[in-house]
């Protein structure tokens, strides 16, 4: 608890400075500000710690804090302490660009970890690109981003959605229905489902997209029933959309049509909802809290020790955040400097380490991670791992993204159907 307070205090002092920037910046000569800046290494964190996305965002910010504390406890990097400068974007898109500009122009940070939704990533990615600050997006997403300045440590559809679809085709049937959040993540992931279904000889019989504040799913539940799929894939994001699962159950659909999801469980659903709602929904992630390895267990222990009752549910998102920071730290050590080119070169040198989710390596060509993924389902508020897939390649760009060979590439590859 005291750690948390300290963090808040630290953030506030930083912000107090920035809030009065217009005035105080007048007074402080430029060289003085530069001098202050060089004492610590600055790690920028930009995350939705409050608001409807906070169930995902807050643990990620906590993990960032944990990782930075660990690094500092081990002596910091290059003999300097790491200062975490954190902004809460309050689940509001406008604040992303505002705070990203603040990180880039005022705080002049050395690296940024953060961004939760794909929308937020696309909003801030160009800002850090222009400011030449390496950017880590540590959230599982729709895949395909190919940008020399950006590193994505979360899992992608080529590592998870394909397994969900295979599972469905094998166990349930050839027809599926997709429910997705109405933004690029939901749209592109749905295209992936279409592609994988077609490849496996099945089809998507319907897809509905919802704004993030959608709460009433009754008309969709009717539509699903009239389309009669063999299973439903949900790509629903945020607190409001989790209401679907309860409406699904109370409409009596739970026992009729099985659900698969690559998002369910990321916002602590297995603890906040009745087990009758959650049990049996099949998911696929790069990590589950129940994974029985020493690294995984110690990660959970460390988090629980540091944040106690303030910690609400853990997921792959936290592990990939941790991975992102560790890769960056490894690269800084290897480069021996914070110079962007040196750090990028080190990041592209084929780094790997054993994280809570197992062995992970950073793919130099795509700037994504090669890692194990797992199929799992909730049972009595615990995750049951059903299957393990080792060494999953982030092949979402179909081999077209090779940043080693073509560093000027900057686009997002999407599935071709």
């Amino acid at each position, binding site marked *: 608890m005291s750690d948390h307070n300290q963090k808040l205090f630290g953030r506030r002092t930083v912000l107090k400075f920035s809030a009065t920037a217009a005035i105080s910046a007048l007074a402080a000569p430029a060289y003085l500000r530069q001098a202050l800046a060089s004492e610590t290494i600055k790690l920028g964190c930009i995350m939705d710690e409050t608001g409807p996305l906070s169930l995902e965002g807050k643990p990620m910010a906590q993990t960032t804090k944990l990782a930075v504390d660990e690094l500092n406890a081990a002596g910091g990097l290059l003999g300097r302490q790491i200062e975490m400068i954190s902004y809460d974007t309050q689940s509001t898109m406008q604040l992303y660009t505002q705070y990203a500009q603040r990180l880039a122009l005022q705080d002049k940070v050395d690296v940024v970890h953060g961004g939760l939704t794909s929308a937020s990533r696309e909003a801030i990615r160009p800002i850090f690109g222009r400011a030449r600050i390496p950017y880590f997006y540590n959230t599982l997403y729709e895949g395909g981003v190919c940008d020399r300045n950006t590193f994505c440590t979360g899992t992608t559809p080529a590592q998870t959605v394909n397994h969900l679809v295979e599972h469905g085709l094998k166990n349930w049937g050839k027809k599926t229905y997709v429910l997705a959040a109405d933004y690029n993540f939901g749209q592109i992931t749905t295209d992936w489902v279409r592609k994988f279904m077609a490849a496996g000889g099945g089809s998507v019989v319907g897809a509905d997209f919802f704004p993030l504040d959608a709460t009433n799913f009754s008309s*969709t539940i009717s539509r699903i029933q009239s389309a009669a799929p063999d299973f439903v894939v949900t790509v629903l994001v945020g*607190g409001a959309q989790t209401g679907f699962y309860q409406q699904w159950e109370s409409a009596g659909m739970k026992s009729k049509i099985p659900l698969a999801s690559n998002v369910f469980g990321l916002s602590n659903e297995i603890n906040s909802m009745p087990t009758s709602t959650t049990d049996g929904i099949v998911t696929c992630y790069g990590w589950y809290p129940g994974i029985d390895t020493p690294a995984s267990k110690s990660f959970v222990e460390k988090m629980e020790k540091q944040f106690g009752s303030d910690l609400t549910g853990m997921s792959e998102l936290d592990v990939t955040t941790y991975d992102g920071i560790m890769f960056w730290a490894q690269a800084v050590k290897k480069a021996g400097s914070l110079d962007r080119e040196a750090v990028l070169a080190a990041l592209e040198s084929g780094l790997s380490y054993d994280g809570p989710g197992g062995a992970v390596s950073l793919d130099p060509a795509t700037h994504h991670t090669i890692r194990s993924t797992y199929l799992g389902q909730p049972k009595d508020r615990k995750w049951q791992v059903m299957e393990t897939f080792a060494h999953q390649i982030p092949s979402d760009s179909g081999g077209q993204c090779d940043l080693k060979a073509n560093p000027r590439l900057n686009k997002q590859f999407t599935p071709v159907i």
Partner: protein
Amino acid sequence: MDLAGLIAFNVVTGIAMLCLITIGLGVIYGMMRIINLAHGELMMLGAFTCVIATEAGINIWISIFVLSPLVVGIIGLVLERTIIRFLYGRILDTMLATWGISIGLTGLIVTIFGNNVRTLANPAPSFGIGEYSTSLYGLVVVAVAVGALGSLFALLRFTKFGLILRATMERPGMAAALGIKPDTVYMATFALGSALAGMAGAVLAPISGVSPVMGVAYITRAFITVLGGGAAIVTGTGLASMLFGTIDELVSFKASPVIGSVAMLMTAVVLIRILPTGITGRFLRRSL
């Protein structure tokens, strides 16, 4: 055939939801000519009351039908006494003030409880229509909506309080002539409208989830239904809900919920343009 039954059920539920959302706003607008932009937040407070009460172990039905209306009714009373009563007769100022209340209440609840969505377990089982199935809770919503409209009608038609309300509605001086302060009537009306909003929020909580910002989703719908319905509270709310609810549900089923909602709003804009005094401003003028 079964599918048609399911869709019909959804349409009826949709209409009932719209009725519930609207009725509290309708009472306040119909009687006092105040457009209460904090209506959605009063619903939100009702939903929060219900969630907190059930989390404290109180029976969900008691929370919905007793606690939520009571708590929000009292909040409405306080708001009326401290803010609204100074603004009678200034329609735009009341809109601004209630908007301020709306933003402030959202901010207050965010500050206290955080901007998160809470869920309330659905207390009703599911039932089948042929090979399709749906939640029985829809029937609860329909029953509550019918009950609320019915009791409001009875209140206006058969009680002395209803007579006074109608008199005040026709002409503010009338109440004074009957020996009642219009002030008191307005106070009671605002509290009644708030209580109805609180109950609506609580009834819908198991379906929609509960969050501090949920009010925004309701206010536009309630708003257009009241204005679309016109002066007669019960008939107007009922008719406008039927029109808008049917459009919303059918288009939602055919296209998507967003298009459904857009279609409904467009219909409302056109309706208000054609009938500025609402459906009952033009037809069925003598109704309640």
